[in-house]
């Protein structure tokens, strides 16, 4: 009995060690946005009649709430855009890469859909596009690149790939090596001084480089690039 107990609790300890996620920092909601939470996603609505939607997949072991500052940014207040941040099982997008399809079915009034993702979420966004390319008009990758099994080189949608220059988790080499898997017209852009964790608001990420910008500054720059790409 004791040996069996030790085995199962040892197993539990191992799982526990690798299952810590990043706690989002407290976020002050912005007046011009209404935020609705369901069990599957967080909807950010700016009160405008939305014709464009952005579905966002969070990074690995990062709670979707950490990206609220990105999608309820005052720069997005007057756009006809609705954002939907998907909550992932175990905070790992690999477990639900096709959740975007459910979101799209939930909002039939949206005419154009973009899918975005940070880090692992970006890789899974590529997988979602690979599985259902006709559902999306474009894709935004933040410190992310497609998995080896994904080939979007012939996809008709537009792609924006953003990376912080001080990101030590998603290296420039990783982006360069996977360029051939993305459409030829993909826009690659770098945020000077930005790092990996700077796309969300969840503190310092292990093994990441230093953020020379403030966290809100990196978010503002990312939002500007995102808006220019979508519109």
């Amino acid at each position, binding site marked *: 009995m004791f040996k069996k*107990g030790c085995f199962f609790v040892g197993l539990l300890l191992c799982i526990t060690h690798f299952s*810590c996620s990043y706690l989002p920092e407290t976020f002050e909601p912005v007046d011009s946005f209404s935020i609705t939470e369901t069990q599957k996603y*967080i909807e950010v609505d700016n009160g405008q009649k939305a014709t464009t939607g952005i579905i966002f997949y969070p990074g690995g072991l990062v709670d979707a709430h950490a990206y609220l500052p990105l999608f309820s940014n005052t720069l997005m207040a007057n756009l006809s855009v609705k954002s939907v941040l998907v909550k992932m099982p175990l*905070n790992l997008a690999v477990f639900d890469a096709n959740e975007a399809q459910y979101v799209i079915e939930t909002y039939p009034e949206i005419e154009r859909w973009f899918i975005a993702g940070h880090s692992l979420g970006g890789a899974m966004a590529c997988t979602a596009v690979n599985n259902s390319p006709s559902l999306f008009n474009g894709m935004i990758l933040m410190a992310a690149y497609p998995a080896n099994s994904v080939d979007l080189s012939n996809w008709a949608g537009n792609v924006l790939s953003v990376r912080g220059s001080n990101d030590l988790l998603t290296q420039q080499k990783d982006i360069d090596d996977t360029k051939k898997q993305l459409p030829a017209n993909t826009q690659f852009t770098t945020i000077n001084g930005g790092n990996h964790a700077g796309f969300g608001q969840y503190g310092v990420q292990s093994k990441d480089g230093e953020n020379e910008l403030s966290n809100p500054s990196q978010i503002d720059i990312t939002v500007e690039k995102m808006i220019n790409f979508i519109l």
Partner: protein
Amino acid sequence: MIRAILICMLFIFCMKVNSQSFDVGIMSFLNIVTNNKLYEVEKDGLTLNGGGLKFNFQQAYQQSTCNYNIGLELSFNDWGNQILSRLGANTLLNNQIGINIILLNGLALYVDNLAYVFGAEASVFYLIKIKNIDRVKLNLGLRFTQNTKYKTIGNFSFVDLPISICWLFGNRID
């Protein structure tokens, strides 16, 4: 490091029980009520709010007697992954059906930032015999959990319907 010490302490505490029965199970939670102080919550019937693994030690399953049990669960829900101790008592109503009440205390697992989670669970269980020994336990109940740190982030407490299936090790004593 603190996390590892706390988990080891929970385990040692568990082993102090004079356990004659040990069970391992998988569970899933169907959400009924969600509390959120910051944002509007939209619900569409019963939705899956996570699941996990549980390990329980207990004295024995005895009819018409209060049997104490203690265990650990590693589970996930809307606020992420958590490890909880399960301190409870159960009694068999007849040969196969019983009721179980459990207090939950533990930690939501965040990098460098653990959060206290507490709750309670009440359930009805059904024991299934295999080769004349109780081997499988099916559970259906009601469960409340709250994460103290999530009040300023999002959904911070839930009432769920926990459903679980467990494999029992050790013999039942009648």
